[in-house]
Protein backbone atom coordinates (compact mmCIF):
# COMPACT_ATOMS: atom_id res chain seq x y z
CA UNK A 1 0.00 0.00 0.00
CA UNK A 2 1.11 3.54 -0.68
CA UNK A 3 2.60 5.47 2.16
CA UNK A 4 0.97 8.71 3.10
CA UNK A 5 2.42 11.87 4.60
CA UNK A 6 1.56 12.79 8.18
CA UNK A 7 2.35 15.95 10.09
CA UNK A 8 1.74 16.63 13.74
CA UNK A 9 3.16 18.48 16.70
CA UNK A 10 4.73 16.28 19.36
CA UNK A 11 5.99 17.80 22.61
CA UNK A 12 6.00 21.23 20.99
CA UNK A 13 7.98 20.19 17.94
CA UNK A 14 6.62 19.89 14.41
CA UNK A 15 7.23 16.36 13.10
CA UNK A 16 6.40 14.66 9.84
CA UNK A 17 6.76 11.28 8.29
CA UNK A 18 5.61 8.98 5.53
CA UNK A 19 3.75 6.02 6.92
CA UNK A 20 1.66 3.08 5.90
CA UNK A 21 -1.94 3.91 6.83
CA UNK A 22 -2.06 0.84 9.06
CA UNK A 23 0.79 2.11 11.26
CA UNK A 24 -0.54 2.58 14.78
CA UNK A 25 0.28 5.85 16.52
CA UNK A 26 2.21 4.03 19.26
CA UNK A 27 4.57 2.58 16.65
CA UNK A 28 4.97 5.95 14.92
CA UNK A 29 5.97 7.50 18.26
CA UNK A 30 8.31 4.69 19.30
CA UNK A 31 9.81 3.54 16.00
CA UNK A 32 9.76 6.64 13.80
CA UNK A 33 10.27 9.32 16.45
CA UNK A 34 12.23 7.25 19.00
CA UNK A 35 9.88 8.36 21.76
CA UNK A 36 9.92 5.14 23.77
CA UNK A 37 8.22 6.59 26.86
CA UNK A 38 4.75 5.47 25.73
CA UNK A 39 4.79 1.72 26.25
CA UNK A 40 3.22 -1.15 24.37
CA UNK A 41 1.46 -3.12 27.09
CA UNK A 42 -1.59 -5.18 26.21
CA UNK A 43 -2.11 -3.97 22.61
CA UNK A 44 -5.85 -4.42 23.20
CA UNK A 45 -6.93 -0.97 24.51
CA UNK A 46 -7.12 -2.20 28.09
CA UNK A 47 -3.94 -1.38 29.98
CA UNK A 48 -3.33 2.30 29.18
CA UNK A 49 0.50 2.05 29.15
CA UNK A 50 0.47 3.70 25.69
CA UNK A 51 -1.62 6.70 26.81
CA UNK A 52 -0.66 10.05 25.31
CA UNK A 53 -2.37 13.44 25.31
CA UNK A 54 -3.87 14.25 21.90
CA UNK A 55 -5.61 17.60 21.38
CA UNK A 56 -6.61 17.73 25.03
CA UNK A 57 -7.79 14.14 25.27
CA UNK A 58 -6.13 11.12 26.85
CA UNK A 59 -5.81 8.58 24.08
CA UNK A 60 -4.57 5.00 23.97
CA UNK A 61 -2.07 5.30 21.13
CA UNK A 62 -2.33 1.57 20.35
CA UNK A 63 -5.91 2.12 19.19
CA UNK A 64 -5.51 4.97 16.73
CA UNK A 65 -3.67 5.07 13.43
CA UNK A 66 -0.91 7.62 13.00
CA UNK A 67 -2.78 9.02 9.97
CA UNK A 68 -5.76 9.81 12.21
CA UNK A 69 -3.51 12.12 14.26
CA UNK A 70 -2.82 14.30 11.22
CA UNK A 71 -2.50 17.91 12.38
CA UNK A 72 -2.88 16.97 16.04
CA UNK A 73 -1.00 18.36 19.01
CA UNK A 74 0.45 15.53 21.10
CA UNK A 75 2.22 15.33 24.40
CA UNK A 76 4.03 12.22 25.57
CA UNK A 77 5.79 11.59 28.86
CA UNK A 78 8.93 12.99 27.23
CA UNK A 79 7.19 16.37 27.11
CA UNK A 80 6.07 16.43 30.73
CA UNK A 81 9.11 17.80 32.57
CA UNK A 82 9.17 21.54 33.28
CA UNK A 83 10.93 23.78 30.73
CA UNK A 84 13.96 24.09 33.02
CA UNK A 85 14.32 20.31 33.15
CA UNK A 86 12.95 19.89 36.67
CA UNK A 87 10.22 17.32 37.28
CA UNK A 88 6.60 18.30 36.82
CA UNK A 89 4.32 18.08 39.85
CA UNK A 90 3.00 14.69 38.73
CA UNK A 91 6.46 13.24 38.11
CA UNK A 92 7.58 14.52 41.50
CA UNK A 93 4.46 13.08 43.10
CA UNK A 94 5.09 9.61 41.68
CA UNK A 95 8.65 9.80 43.04
CA UNK A 96 7.76 11.19 46.47
CA UNK A 97 4.81 8.88 47.08
CA UNK A 98 6.49 5.79 45.62
CA UNK A 99 3.79 5.60 42.93
CA UNK A 100 5.65 2.98 40.93
CA UNK A 101 7.58 -0.22 41.31
CA UNK A 102 8.56 -1.59 37.91
CA UNK A 103 7.54 1.66 36.21
CA UNK A 104 6.04 0.11 33.10
CA UNK A 105 2.61 1.69 33.54
CA UNK A 106 3.96 5.01 34.81
CA UNK A 107 4.16 7.02 31.55
CA UNK A 108 0.54 6.15 30.81
CA UNK A 109 -0.53 6.84 34.40
CA UNK A 110 1.11 10.26 34.37
CA UNK A 111 -0.29 11.24 30.98
CA UNK A 112 -3.80 10.22 32.04
CA UNK A 113 -3.47 11.92 35.43
CA UNK A 114 -2.24 15.06 33.65
CA UNK A 115 -5.48 15.36 31.66
CA UNK A 116 -7.58 14.42 34.71
CA UNK A 117 -6.04 17.30 36.69
CA UNK A 118 -6.57 19.69 33.77
CA UNK A 119 -10.27 18.83 33.82
CA UNK A 120 -10.65 18.47 37.56
CA UNK A 121 -7.89 20.26 39.51
CA UNK A 122 -9.12 19.03 42.88
CA UNK A 123 -10.34 15.44 42.47
CA UNK A 124 -11.54 13.29 45.35
CA UNK A 125 -9.96 9.89 45.87
CA UNK A 126 -12.96 8.26 44.14
CA UNK A 127 -12.62 10.65 41.20
CA UNK A 128 -8.92 9.83 40.88
CA UNK A 129 -9.69 6.11 40.90
CA UNK A 130 -12.42 6.51 38.26
CA UNK A 131 -10.22 8.86 36.28
CA UNK A 132 -7.43 6.27 36.17
CA UNK A 133 -9.74 3.32 35.55
CA UNK A 134 -8.35 2.85 32.04
CA UNK A 135 -4.80 2.34 33.33
CA UNK A 136 -3.64 -0.93 34.83
CA UNK A 137 -0.75 -1.36 37.27
CA UNK A 138 0.27 -4.88 38.20
CA UNK A 139 2.69 -3.91 41.01
CA UNK A 140 1.44 -1.30 43.42
CA UNK A 141 -2.19 -1.95 44.20
CA UNK A 142 -2.87 1.69 43.18
CA UNK A 143 -2.73 3.17 46.71
CA UNK A 144 0.46 5.10 46.09
CA UNK A 145 -0.57 6.05 42.57
CA UNK A 146 -3.68 7.71 43.99
CA UNK A 147 -1.51 9.45 46.59
CA UNK A 148 0.88 10.61 43.88
CA UNK A 149 -1.93 12.23 41.91
CA UNK A 150 -3.23 13.84 45.08
CA UNK A 151 0.30 15.13 45.81
CA UNK A 152 0.44 16.72 42.36
CA UNK A 153 -3.04 18.23 42.75
CA UNK A 154 -2.04 19.75 46.09
CA UNK A 155 1.21 21.06 44.71
CA UNK A 156 -0.43 22.57 41.64
CA UNK A 157 -3.10 24.14 43.84
CA UNK A 158 -0.37 25.69 46.00
CA UNK A 159 -1.58 23.92 49.12
CA UNK A 160 1.46 21.82 49.80
CA UNK A 161 3.75 24.84 50.03
CA UNK A 162 1.23 26.71 52.12
CA UNK A 163 1.04 23.82 54.59
CA UNK A 164 4.80 23.46 54.93
Amino acid at each position, binding site marked *: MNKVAVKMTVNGQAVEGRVEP*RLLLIHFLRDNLSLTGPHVGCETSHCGACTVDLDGKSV*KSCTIFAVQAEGANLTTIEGMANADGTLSALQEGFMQEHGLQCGYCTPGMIMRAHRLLQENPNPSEAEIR*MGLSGNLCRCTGYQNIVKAVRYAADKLNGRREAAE
Partner: protein
Amino acid sequence: MIPGAFEYHRPASLDEAVTLMTNHGDEGRVVAGGHSLIPMMKLRLAVPTHLIDLGNLADLKGIRAVGKAVEIGAMTTQHDLIASDLLAETCPILREVALTIADPQVRYCGTVGGNVANGDPGNDMPAVMQCLGASFMLRGPKGARQVAARAFYEAAYFTARKDDEILTAISIPLPAQGHGYAYEKLKRKVGDYAIAAAAVVLAMDGGKCKSAAIALTNVGETPIFAEAAGNSLVGTAVDDGAIAKAVAAAKAVAKPAADMRGPQDYRSHAAGVMVERAIKRALTRAKR
Protein backbone atom coordinates in the same frame (compact mmCIF):
# COMPACT_ATOMS: atom_id res chain seq x y z
CA MET B 1 -0.71 -6.93 16.37
CA ILE B 2 -0.60 -5.30 12.96
CA PRO B 3 -3.81 -4.75 11.00
CA GLY B 4 -4.10 -5.73 7.35
CA ALA B 5 -3.12 -3.13 4.77
CA PHE B 6 -5.72 -0.65 3.57
CA GLU B 7 -6.08 2.56 1.67
CA TYR B 8 -6.95 5.52 3.88
CA HIS B 9 -9.51 8.16 2.95
CA ARG B 10 -10.41 11.28 4.89
CA PRO B 11 -13.42 12.85 3.16
CA ALA B 12 -14.11 16.54 3.72
CA SER B 13 -17.88 16.23 3.32
CA LEU B 14 -20.65 13.73 3.94
CA ASP B 15 -21.37 13.58 0.19
CA GLU B 16 -17.76 12.64 -0.46
CA ALA B 17 -17.96 9.97 2.25
CA VAL B 18 -21.13 8.53 0.71
CA THR B 19 -19.47 8.46 -2.73
CA LEU B 20 -16.50 6.59 -1.27
CA MET B 21 -18.82 4.08 0.38
CA THR B 22 -20.73 3.66 -2.89
CA ASN B 23 -17.52 3.06 -4.84
CA HIS B 24 -15.97 0.63 -2.38
CA GLY B 25 -19.06 -1.33 -1.35
CA ASP B 26 -18.38 -4.05 1.15
CA GLU B 27 -14.60 -3.54 0.93
CA GLY B 28 -15.00 -0.13 2.54
CA ARG B 29 -15.59 0.61 6.20
CA VAL B 30 -16.11 3.92 7.90
CA VAL B 31 -14.07 4.58 11.01
CA ALA B 32 -15.53 6.91 13.63
CA GLY B 33 -13.79 6.66 17.02
CA GLY B 34 -12.21 3.39 15.91
CA HIS B 35 -12.41 1.73 19.31
CA SER B 36 -14.49 -1.19 18.06
CA LEU B 37 -13.11 -1.39 14.53
CA ILE B 38 -9.36 -0.99 15.15
CA PRO B 39 -9.19 -3.80 17.74
CA MET B 40 -11.08 -6.01 15.24
CA MET B 41 -8.61 -5.00 12.52
CA LYS B 42 -5.66 -5.82 14.78
CA LEU B 43 -7.11 -9.30 15.26
CA ARG B 44 -7.76 -9.46 11.48
CA LEU B 45 -11.41 -10.13 12.23
CA ALA B 46 -12.06 -7.05 10.08
CA VAL B 47 -9.92 -6.53 6.99
CA PRO B 48 -11.29 -3.53 5.12
CA THR B 49 -9.25 -2.53 2.09
CA HIS B 50 -10.60 1.03 2.18
CA LEU B 51 -10.89 2.86 5.47
CA ILE B 52 -13.02 5.98 5.35
CA ASP B 53 -12.31 8.25 8.31
CA LEU B 54 -15.26 10.45 9.32
CA GLY B 55 -13.06 12.48 11.68
CA ASN B 56 -13.21 15.67 9.60
CA LEU B 57 -16.99 15.79 9.27
CA ALA B 58 -17.86 18.44 11.84
CA ASP B 59 -21.54 18.24 10.77
CA LEU B 60 -21.75 14.78 12.32
CA LYS B 61 -20.80 16.07 15.78
CA GLY B 62 -22.96 17.71 18.38
CA ILE B 63 -26.10 17.46 20.48
CA ARG B 64 -29.06 19.70 19.73
CA ALA B 65 -32.72 20.05 20.61
CA VAL B 66 -34.94 19.74 17.53
CA GLY B 67 -38.60 20.30 18.40
CA LYS B 68 -39.65 17.61 20.87
CA ALA B 69 -36.59 15.50 20.14
CA VAL B 70 -32.90 15.64 20.84
CA GLU B 71 -30.63 14.91 17.92
CA ILE B 72 -27.16 13.53 18.50
CA GLY B 73 -24.63 13.52 15.67
CA ALA B 74 -23.13 10.11 15.00
CA MET B 75 -19.56 11.33 15.66
CA THR B 76 -20.42 12.65 19.13
CA THR B 77 -18.19 10.89 21.64
CA GLN B 78 -19.22 9.20 24.87
CA HIS B 79 -17.17 11.90 26.62
CA ASP B 80 -19.33 14.57 24.91
CA LEU B 81 -22.53 12.81 26.09
CA ILE B 82 -21.26 12.80 29.68
CA ALA B 83 -20.39 16.51 29.51
CA SER B 84 -23.66 17.65 27.87
CA ASP B 85 -25.88 19.93 29.99
CA LEU B 86 -28.71 19.50 27.48
CA LEU B 87 -28.72 15.72 27.95
CA ALA B 88 -28.30 15.99 31.73
CA GLU B 89 -31.49 18.02 31.77
CA THR B 90 -33.60 16.24 29.16
CA CYS B 91 -32.34 12.66 28.79
CA PRO B 92 -30.04 11.85 31.71
CA ILE B 93 -30.05 8.08 31.15
CA LEU B 94 -27.51 8.62 28.35
CA ARG B 95 -24.96 10.04 30.77
CA GLU B 96 -25.53 7.14 33.16
CA VAL B 97 -25.00 4.65 30.34
CA ALA B 98 -21.95 6.39 28.86
CA LEU B 99 -20.24 6.27 32.25
CA THR B 100 -20.51 2.46 32.24
CA ILE B 101 -18.82 2.16 28.83
CA ALA B 102 -15.13 1.21 28.77
CA ASP B 103 -12.83 3.76 30.46
CA PRO B 104 -12.00 7.48 30.22
CA GLN B 105 -9.52 7.15 27.35
CA VAL B 106 -11.89 5.05 25.27
CA ARG B 107 -14.76 7.45 25.99
CA TYR B 108 -12.79 10.39 24.55
CA CYS B 109 -12.65 8.53 21.21
CA GLY B 110 -15.60 6.13 21.12
CA THR B 111 -18.66 7.61 19.45
CA VAL B 112 -22.35 7.05 20.02
CA GLY B 113 -22.77 6.39 16.29
CA GLY B 114 -20.15 3.67 16.27
CA ASN B 115 -21.64 2.15 19.39
CA VAL B 116 -25.11 1.82 17.88
CA ALA B 117 -24.16 1.07 14.25
CA ASN B 118 -21.55 -1.59 14.84
CA GLY B 119 -24.11 -4.22 15.83
CA ASP B 120 -22.03 -5.71 18.63
CA PRO B 121 -24.53 -7.20 21.10
CA GLY B 122 -22.17 -6.19 23.92
CA ASN B 123 -22.54 -2.49 23.19
CA ASP B 124 -24.67 -0.60 25.69
CA MET B 125 -26.28 2.18 23.65
CA PRO B 126 -28.39 0.01 21.30
CA ALA B 127 -30.74 -1.28 24.02
CA VAL B 128 -30.94 2.19 25.54
CA MET B 129 -31.92 3.65 22.15
CA GLN B 130 -34.60 0.95 21.85
CA CYS B 131 -35.83 1.81 25.33
CA LEU B 132 -36.04 5.51 24.39
CA GLY B 133 -37.75 4.81 21.04
CA ALA B 134 -34.91 6.48 19.10
CA SER B 135 -34.51 6.55 15.32
CA PHE B 136 -31.29 6.23 13.38
CA MET B 137 -30.72 8.54 10.42
CA LEU B 138 -28.87 6.92 7.53
CA ARG B 139 -27.41 8.48 4.39
CA GLY B 140 -26.69 6.49 1.26
CA PRO B 141 -26.39 7.06 -2.48
CA LYS B 142 -30.19 7.10 -2.75
CA GLY B 143 -30.60 9.76 -0.08
CA ALA B 144 -31.55 9.80 3.57
CA ARG B 145 -33.82 7.46 5.50
CA GLN B 146 -34.68 6.72 9.11
CA VAL B 147 -34.88 3.35 10.82
CA ALA B 148 -36.32 2.84 14.29
CA ALA B 149 -33.78 1.47 16.79
CA ARG B 150 -36.34 -1.22 17.62
CA ALA B 151 -36.21 -2.43 13.98
CA PHE B 152 -32.50 -1.91 13.29
CA TYR B 153 -30.81 -4.98 14.74
CA GLU B 154 -31.03 -8.26 12.81
CA ALA B 155 -28.28 -10.49 14.25
CA ALA B 156 -24.86 -10.03 15.82
CA TYR B 157 -23.07 -7.45 13.61
CA PHE B 158 -25.94 -7.44 11.12
CA THR B 159 -28.19 -4.40 11.02
CA ALA B 160 -30.65 -2.70 8.69
CA ARG B 161 -27.83 -0.38 7.53
CA LYS B 162 -26.79 -1.22 3.97
CA ASP B 163 -23.12 -1.52 3.04
CA ASP B 164 -23.13 1.83 1.26
CA GLU B 165 -24.98 3.74 3.99
CA ILE B 166 -23.54 5.88 6.78
CA LEU B 167 -25.25 6.54 10.09
CA THR B 168 -25.34 10.33 10.45
CA ALA B 169 -27.40 11.03 13.57
CA ILE B 170 -29.71 9.62 16.21
CA SER B 171 -33.03 11.25 16.97
CA ILE B 172 -34.49 10.64 20.41
CA PRO B 173 -38.02 11.76 21.30
CA LEU B 174 -37.66 13.60 24.61
CA PRO B 175 -38.85 11.45 27.51
CA ALA B 176 -41.72 12.93 29.56
CA GLN B 177 -40.83 15.63 32.11
CA GLY B 178 -40.34 13.99 35.48
CA HIS B 179 -39.72 10.53 34.01
CA GLY B 180 -37.70 7.97 35.95
CA TYR B 181 -34.80 6.16 34.38
CA ALA B 182 -32.03 3.72 35.22
CA TYR B 183 -29.41 1.61 33.51
CA GLU B 184 -28.22 -1.34 35.56
CA LYS B 185 -25.20 -3.19 34.25
CA LEU B 186 -23.57 -6.23 35.82
CA LYS B 187 -19.97 -6.55 34.71
CA ARG B 188 -16.83 -8.25 35.90
CA LYS B 189 -14.66 -5.15 36.01
CA VAL B 190 -14.44 -1.55 34.82
CA GLY B 191 -14.56 -1.41 31.05
CA ASP B 192 -16.09 -4.82 30.55
CA TYR B 193 -19.11 -5.67 28.48
CA ALA B 194 -22.21 -6.61 30.45
CA ILE B 195 -22.90 -10.05 31.84
CA ALA B 196 -26.41 -8.64 31.58
CA ALA B 197 -27.78 -5.10 31.63
CA ALA B 198 -31.19 -3.47 31.62
CA ALA B 199 -32.47 -0.01 30.65
CA VAL B 200 -35.73 1.27 32.09
CA VAL B 201 -37.58 4.53 31.36
CA LEU B 202 -40.96 5.06 33.00
CA ALA B 203 -43.40 7.84 33.83
CA MET B 204 -45.82 7.94 36.75
CA ASP B 205 -49.05 9.91 37.17
CA GLY B 206 -51.17 9.91 40.32
CA GLY B 207 -49.35 6.87 41.71
CA LYS B 208 -49.93 4.80 38.57
CA CYS B 209 -47.48 3.99 35.82
CA LYS B 210 -48.38 5.99 32.71
CA SER B 211 -45.72 4.56 30.39
CA ALA B 212 -42.79 2.20 30.67
CA ALA B 213 -40.11 0.81 28.38
CA ILE B 214 -37.54 -1.86 29.15
CA ALA B 215 -34.66 -3.11 27.00
CA LEU B 216 -31.81 -5.57 27.61
CA THR B 217 -28.10 -5.56 26.69
CA ASN B 218 -25.90 -8.56 25.87
CA VAL B 219 -28.38 -11.33 26.59
CA GLY B 220 -28.97 -12.23 22.96
CA GLU B 221 -27.55 -11.80 19.47
CA THR B 222 -29.08 -8.34 19.36
CA PRO B 223 -30.27 -5.82 21.94
CA ILE B 224 -33.72 -6.88 23.10
CA PHE B 225 -36.69 -4.54 23.44
CA ALA B 226 -38.74 -6.24 26.15
CA GLU B 227 -42.04 -4.78 25.02
CA ALA B 228 -44.36 -7.01 27.06
CA ALA B 229 -42.29 -6.40 30.20
CA GLY B 230 -42.66 -2.62 29.85
CA ASN B 231 -46.34 -2.83 28.98
CA SER B 232 -47.03 -5.02 32.02
CA LEU B 233 -46.07 -2.13 34.30
CA VAL B 234 -48.48 0.37 32.72
CA GLY B 235 -51.53 1.03 34.89
CA THR B 236 -49.96 -0.55 37.98
CA ALA B 237 -48.52 1.17 41.04
CA VAL B 238 -45.20 -0.52 40.21
CA ASP B 239 -45.47 -2.50 43.44
CA ASP B 240 -43.55 -5.71 44.12
CA GLY B 241 -46.13 -7.88 42.36
CA ALA B 242 -46.04 -5.75 39.19
CA ILE B 243 -42.24 -5.68 39.23
CA ALA B 244 -42.10 -9.48 39.53
CA LYS B 245 -44.39 -9.82 36.49
CA ALA B 246 -42.23 -7.43 34.45
CA VAL B 247 -39.07 -9.28 35.48
CA ALA B 248 -40.61 -12.61 34.41
CA ALA B 249 -41.69 -11.12 31.07
CA ALA B 250 -38.19 -9.71 30.46
CA LYS B 251 -36.49 -12.98 31.36
CA ALA B 252 -38.82 -14.78 28.95
CA VAL B 253 -37.36 -12.85 25.99
CA ALA B 254 -33.71 -12.91 27.16
CA LYS B 255 -31.69 -15.49 25.23
CA PRO B 256 -28.16 -15.27 26.58
CA ALA B 257 -25.43 -17.55 25.29
CA ALA B 258 -23.12 -19.44 27.62
CA ASP B 259 -19.71 -17.83 27.35
CA MET B 260 -16.80 -16.62 29.47
CA ARG B 261 -19.26 -14.33 31.28
CA GLY B 262 -21.15 -17.30 32.64
CA PRO B 263 -23.58 -20.09 31.82
CA GLN B 264 -26.94 -19.40 30.28
CA ASP B 265 -29.10 -19.75 33.38
CA TYR B 266 -26.81 -17.47 35.40
CA ARG B 267 -26.90 -14.74 32.77
CA SER B 268 -30.66 -15.08 32.42
CA HIS B 269 -31.02 -14.78 36.19
CA ALA B 270 -28.69 -11.77 36.15
CA ALA B 271 -30.85 -10.13 33.47
CA GLY B 272 -33.86 -10.49 35.77
CA VAL B 273 -31.99 -8.95 38.69
CA MET B 274 -30.86 -6.03 36.51
CA VAL B 275 -34.43 -5.41 35.36
CA GLU B 276 -35.71 -5.46 38.95
CA ARG B 277 -33.02 -3.05 40.15
CA ALA B 278 -33.50 -0.74 37.18
CA ILE B 279 -37.27 -0.54 37.68
CA LYS B 280 -36.86 0.19 41.40
CA ARG B 281 -34.25 2.86 40.82
CA ALA B 282 -36.22 4.44 37.97
CA LEU B 283 -39.22 4.58 40.29
CA THR B 284 -37.28 6.50 42.96
CA ARG B 285 -36.37 9.07 40.30
CA ALA B 286 -39.83 9.46 38.76
CA LYS B 287 -42.18 12.24 39.78
CA ARG B 288 -45.28 10.56 41.19
